[in-house]
């Protein structure tokens, strides 16, 4: 029989019973909307966290040295030996302490002084806003130059360009050669920090050796090999015999962290979607309920159609198409609401949402599936009515 005609009739039935149809579809609309909105929130949050972790520097390994016995640190030269590894593209040891920074009669207390080398910028994915960063030459020659965090720069200099000016730290004068671009990540901000060559920091702070090294693997696939090489070397230095025995150093792997977070947020997103999907199933039960009422109400119509030659399959199709049209329209409205809700949450509640096509397709398909699944029983009931019983029904 004529599918198009049946679809047309189903639409007409829906329009004839606007309120009932809307209430029937409401379950599906809410279901699809919440699946899309919640999964969008989950995906948006994942994307944001991932981006933040990646902004700390790509393929980053962070090495913390606790040491063993009298040797509690690595020397700067020992740390820089990691550069010999072919898996490693940057080594940025850091010595830090809290100091007072002065310029003229302004002084700022409790500023974190970071003794760093020329690799820091690329390893940590930082950039300089004004002026430039240290050269290898300046590190080697312990030149008295400094790069300021953006916040400290404006506190000390106001609207004056700090580049070329002088700051005083622990009684030494430093020429300011650059100002960092404001940055903040999960590992803190550079805005309130002052950077000087690490070689100089060792002297000024009277701190021998480094406890913290940022290392950049040459690419994503090199991360684990780099880690193995670093471990092997540190094991030798600190005479670590086994993994369990290692209290001397820790290596944090950014990609491992990313994986863990991604895994967790994926599970969370699935759970959110799953909970929302339950409301779709409830919507399906609503459709089944209404279709059953409709079959009863239209028993006589079914009888007439059968008397005129409708087969079981014709009647079954008619009711199945009706529940499909109901759930399909509900699904489409839900998709629109889902997009709008996700967009609205991002725009007005400043949540990170990310609506992807696969999620929309899955949510819509699921609403169609729900329509078929919960439509089958009423449709089958209608198709199985005996013509004479249906005709006699009052």
């Amino acid at each position: 029989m004529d599918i198009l005609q049946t679809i047309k009739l189903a639409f007409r039935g829906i329009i004839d019973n606007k309120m009932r149809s809307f209430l029937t579809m409401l379950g599906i609309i809410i279901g699809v909307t919440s699946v899309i909105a919640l999964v969008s929130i989950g995906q948006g949050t994942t994307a944001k966290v991932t981006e933040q972790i990646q902004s700390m520097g790509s393929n980053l390994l962070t090495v913390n040295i606790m040491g063993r016995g009298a040797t509690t640190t690595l020397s700067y030269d020992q740390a820089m030996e990691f550069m010999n590894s072919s898996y490693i593209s940057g080594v940025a040891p850091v010595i830090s302490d809290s100091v007072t920074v002065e310029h003229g009669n302004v002084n700022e207390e409790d500023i974190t002084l970071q003794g760093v080398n020329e690799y820091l910028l690329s390893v940590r994915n930082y950039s300089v806003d004004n002026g430039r960063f240290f050269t290898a030459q300046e590190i080697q020659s312990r030149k008295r130059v400094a790069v300021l965090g953006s916040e400290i720069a404006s506190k000390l200099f106001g609207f004056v360009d700090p580049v070329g000016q002088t700051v005083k730290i622990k009684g030494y004068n430093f020429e300011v050669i650059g100002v960092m671009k404001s940055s903040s990540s999960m590992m803190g901000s550079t805005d309130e920090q002052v950077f000087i060559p690490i070689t100089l920091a060792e002297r000024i702070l009277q701190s021998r050796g480094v406890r913290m090294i940022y290392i950049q693997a040459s690419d994503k696939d090199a991360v684990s090999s780099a880690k193995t090489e670093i471990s092997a070397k540190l094991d030798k230095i600190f005479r670590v015999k086994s993994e369990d025995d290692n209290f001397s150093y820790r290596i944090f792997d950014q990609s491992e962290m990313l994986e863990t977070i991604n895994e967790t947020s994926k599970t969370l997103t699935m759970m959110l979607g799953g909970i929302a999907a339950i409301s779709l199933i409830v919507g399906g039960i609503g459709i089944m309920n209404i279709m059953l009422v409709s079959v009863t109400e239209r028993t006589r119509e079914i009888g007439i159609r059968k008397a005129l030659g409708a087969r079981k399959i014709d009647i079954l199709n008619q009711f199945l198409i009706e529940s499909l049209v109901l759930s399909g329209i509900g699904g489409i409205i839900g998709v629109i609401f889902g997009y709008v809700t996700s967009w609205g949450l991002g725009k007005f509640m400043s949540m990170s949402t990310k609506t992807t096509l696969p999620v929309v397709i899955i949510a819509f398909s699921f609403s169609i599936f729900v329509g078929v699944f919960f439509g089958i029983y009423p449709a089958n009931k209608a198709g199985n009515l005996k013509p004479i019983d249906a005709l006699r029904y009052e």
Partner: protein
Amino acid sequence: MVINLENVYKIYEMGDAEVHALDDVTLKIEEGEFVAIVGPSGSGKSTLMNILGCLDTPTSGKYEFEGRDVSRLNDNELAAIRNRRIGFVFQNFNLLPKLTALENVELPLMYAGKSTSFRRNRAKEVLEAVGLGQRLHHKPKELSGGQQQRVAIARALSADPSIILGDEPTGNLDTKSGREIMEILKALNKNGKTIILITHDLNIAKQAQRNVHIQDGRIVKDEKVVG
């Protein structure tokens, strides 16, 4: 032979009691006949008509429709017979209220799998034949009883069946409309359709060629109408 009923029973169980709605009915109807089945209310006329129309099945006995044993046919084959071989006209019209006259008449053609354009043309043709060419797009409730029954006849005719079954088709109509319906049925019979008409009205029955009298589920008299 279009219809061949042999020793047909239809028994309804009502608690402990049994109702013999049809009690050993044997009836043969040839092609082209105009038969009225007459009897008082509750005599089993509708039961008989439902069995003849393949809407219901006998409790026992044999029913051959156009030479085929109906008890051996499956649901789809029975639907095909109702669709293409039989046209029904009911006392209460049984039109679908949400469809227009044209759409109602198209229904059997739709279930016969005819194309939209064929359905349109054929439905128009039969509606014009029953004098409703000006009412194609009216809904049933916008039509008078007589007009509704004419739509129903058009619908019964649309798939060009060989036999028309009418269960008190004039029962709900005023005399004038009833007469018009009878004229249409007589004209159809002249054109070769077999007509089986159920009625409790002897004046209606007189207009057929043959009267089968039924009482308490039994055929009590089967006679040619003279005149």
